[in-house]
């Protein structure tokens, strides 16, 4: 086959067996990557299975373009049942592991069962070996990768692994490859830990077959040239995301603390990130076959080396009231080595700080550590305790809700979660479309989407971006942050767009958000690589099918309209300052946006469940049959 390798690898850790099955029958409807992964989890997960049960399949999905010469082809999607949300998990990471899986000859890897003792997987082309990992159990993610490469005698083996947090089943433990590329959200590290699986090591000698190699090469060289001219490329490749973060703080898009404040004067005046990057960034680096270099490789004497990008820059600064960049870097390296989702971990710390600040908890509740805003001790000890499940960390490892319940009703009242997880740290009061996308999103965290970024872009050139919004989403107001109009359509179209690069196995930053803001280029690459002749509308239709199947998986888990919501803070407490002073979500208008969204989607407004007609239209009759009959 061209593009796809044509094989799905299935490994059962309980029986110590591995088999392969063909990919081909799925691709017309689900494409690959995330889309096909959704179908695989839908078929392989048996309702009622606990996230930590051996029966919960952990699925890695590359797409037909992963590993090709298309710039930004390093992505791989991960899914399972999430131990955080009890819904479908979704995580996506870059770097070099995904392409290596393709070179070894697989589109997807499904891992089931549970090993009776710590092990790691060694996939070398056709050979699959389950190896003892007792000697690396307990090691951090950097040490683990090194130890495995040494043991296998090949420094080019690519490893994705868990750290101590995953071993201890911290519910938001993540997967790490290289120094800081993470399958961050929804607790994939914990699922891997529950299988006694420390790492998956891969080495492939093959490649990805291309239907039209000459044209594909020319197209790829052309796109590299175009990208270099793009301002977003130059910003990302020279600075990474750090200056963008500073800008986001300026426009109240990023909150300060636990969604408590915006426009923290001190932070605005002297956000120290940019200076820090200037001083300690050895070079900017990126993922496989990508000319963009959106990560900073920092080397700080006495602290350590590694890469970082976007979320830690706000998570371990503004979110925890911290302006000390050494502390930011220590915390970032710490979560990466321990293997924890930096977004959720930062939110945990921010939550404790808010409770402490308002006198709801004292130092006694947090093992004697005062949770002062920005406190070095508070941040670092909390992170370590969570990963090791020590003291309060053992409760926090179960998630913020569990911790809140321990502290009592006042704390429960304060906790800000969407579908069981920390929402993306964006300020939803001022940005109405972003709020809608967060609320209805499949995992409580689908951001950023194109429609959401448009609300940010709007500040730079309002009229221009209103025009863009009209062309792309049918309504000028879709770009205006404070407007509720046109947001539902923007959400629907953005969601379909996002699923195209995710399913092709390429980077959505390049083919959705920052460089190319539609899926046309990605479609052209897809056709040249696979020999198909599909248009963008065809791929977007697959995006819609995938979106609906994701929803149906969650509906099967019990998700309903009421779960598509945001913490009440966003409706009750207006912003106290900044350019959006006074902004708050109006509940009625917010619910109207949702109505509109369900209507466009063809979902029932009362329940938020896709209608049978919609599912039949999308060729999901079997899903309608299985899931809807209970509600009929």
């Amino acid at each position, binding site marked *: 086959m061209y593009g796809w390798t044509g094989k799905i690898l299935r490994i059962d850790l309980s029986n110590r067996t591995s088999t392969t099955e063909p990919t081909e029958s799925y691709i017309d409807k689900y494409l690959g990557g995330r889309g096909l992964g959704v179908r695989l989890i839908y078929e392989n997960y048996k309702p009622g299975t606990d996230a930590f049960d051996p029966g919960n399949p952990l699925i890695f999905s590359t797409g037909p373009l992963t*590993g*090709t*010469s298309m*710039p930004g082809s390093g992505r791989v999607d991960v899914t399972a049942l999430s131990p955080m949300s009890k819904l479908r998990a979704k995580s996506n990471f870059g770097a*070099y592991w995904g*392409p290596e899986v393709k*070179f070894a000859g697989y589109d997807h890897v499904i891992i089931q069962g549970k090993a009776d003792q710590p092990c790691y997987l060694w996939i070398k082309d056709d050979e699959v070996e389950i190896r003892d990992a007792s000697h690396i159990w307990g090691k951090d993610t*950097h040490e683990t*990768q*090194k130890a495995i490469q040494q043991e296998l005698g090949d*420094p*080019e083996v690519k490893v994705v692994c868990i750290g101590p947090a995953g071993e201890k089943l911290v519910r938001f433990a993540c997967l790490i490859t*290289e*120094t800081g590329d993470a399958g961050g959200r929804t607790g994939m590290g914990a699922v891997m830990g529950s299988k006694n699986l420390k790492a998956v090591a891969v080495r*492939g*000698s*093959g*490649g*990805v*077959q*291309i239907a039209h*190699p*000459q044209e*594909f*090469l020319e197209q*790829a*060289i052309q796109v*590299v040239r175009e990208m*270099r001219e793009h301002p977003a490329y*130059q910003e990302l*490749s*020279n*600075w990474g995301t750090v200056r963008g973060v500073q800008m986001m703080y300026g426009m109240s898009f990023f909150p300060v603390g636990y969604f408590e404040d915006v426009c923290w004067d001190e932070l605005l005046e002297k956000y120290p990130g940019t200076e820090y990057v*200037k001083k*300690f*960034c*050895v*070079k*900017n*680096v*990126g*993922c*496989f*076959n*990508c*000319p*963009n*270099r959106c990560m900073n*490789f920092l*080397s700080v*004497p006495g602290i350590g*080396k*590694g890469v970082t990008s976007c979320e830690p820059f706000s998570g371990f600064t503004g979110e925890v009231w911290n302006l000390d960049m050494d502390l930011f870097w220590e915390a970032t390296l710490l979560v990466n080595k321990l293997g924890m989702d930096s977004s959720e971990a930062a939110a945990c710390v921010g939550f404790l700080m808010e409770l402490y600040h308002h006198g709801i908890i004292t130092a006694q509740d947090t093992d004697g550590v005062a949770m002062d805003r920005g406190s070095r001790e508070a941040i670092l000890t909390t992170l370590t305790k969570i990963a090791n499940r020590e003291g309060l960390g053992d409760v926090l490892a179960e998630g913020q809700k569990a911790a809140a319940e321990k502290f009592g009703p006042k704390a429960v009242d304060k906790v800000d979660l969407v579908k069981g997880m920390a929402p993306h740290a964006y300020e939803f009061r001022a940005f109405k479309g972003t709020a809608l996308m967060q609320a209805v999103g499949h995992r409580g965290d689908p951001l950023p989407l194109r429609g959401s970024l448009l609300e940010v872009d709007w500040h730079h050139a309002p009229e221009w971006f209103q025009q863009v919004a009209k062309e792309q989403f049918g309504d000028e107001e879709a770009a205006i942050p404070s407007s509720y109009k046109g947001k539902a359509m923007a959400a629907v179209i953005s969601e379909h767009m996002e699923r195209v690069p995710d399913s092709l196995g390429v980077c959505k930053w390049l083919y959705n958000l920052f460089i190319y803001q539609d899926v046309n280029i990605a479609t052209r690459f897809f056709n040249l690589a696979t020999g198909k002749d599909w248009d963008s509308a065809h791929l977007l239709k697959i995006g819609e099918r995938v979106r609906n199947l994701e929803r149906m998986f969650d509906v099967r888990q019990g998700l309903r309209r009421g779960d598509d919501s945001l913490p009440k803070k966003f409706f009750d407490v207006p912003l106290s300052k900044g350019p959006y002073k006074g902004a708050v979500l109006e509940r009625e208008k917010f619910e109207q946006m949702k109505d509109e969204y369900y209507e466009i989607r063809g979902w029932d407004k009362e329940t938020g469940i896709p209608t049978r007609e919609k599912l039949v239209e999308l060729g999901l009759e079997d899903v309608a049959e299985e899931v809807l009959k209970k509600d009929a």
Partner: protein
Amino acid sequence: MYKTVVIDAAKCTGCRACENYCSLKHEGVCAPSRGRIHVVKWEQQGIFVPVSCMRCQEPACELVCPKCATRRDFATGAMTVDANRCIGCLSCVFACPFGATFLDQETGKILKCDLCDGDPTCVKVCPTGALSFEEVSQETYLKLLENADRLPQLVREALGQGEPQGTTPAAPQEKQETQEAQEGQ
């Protein structure tokens, strides 16, 4: 006058685009393992060293070949391997002091940089200017020497045996200039 690919490892970010495009161009498949250039990576140290044919003045690969299959292409200066003469003894692979003569595991063929007949693909797609294509001149020669001198230190540092790179990291402004300079070519 020949032109040659100048490798500056200090600028390499390890993206492996060069390997992948090389394979697509020559073998029609995206398989970095079949590229004629290869990036040696120490990702935890942020050190990446591209390795490819250096077109030596007295090439070990040519001297050692029992069938005279490896010869210089006097149009481009590239060392080429005549597949019809090659008997697959791998002498050239082992003789190359840079480890820059590769074996295609799939076909048993020797993979050697042919400079894409004077228009190297890897240089076109290298995002940082770690690879550049320059006239062989006194200046280029000095640059090659300088880059060669830097290599052992990078390797020592990667293995944790040396002082960290004495160079202060290039400020972003400078990086931008480099990029522009490269695009100007």
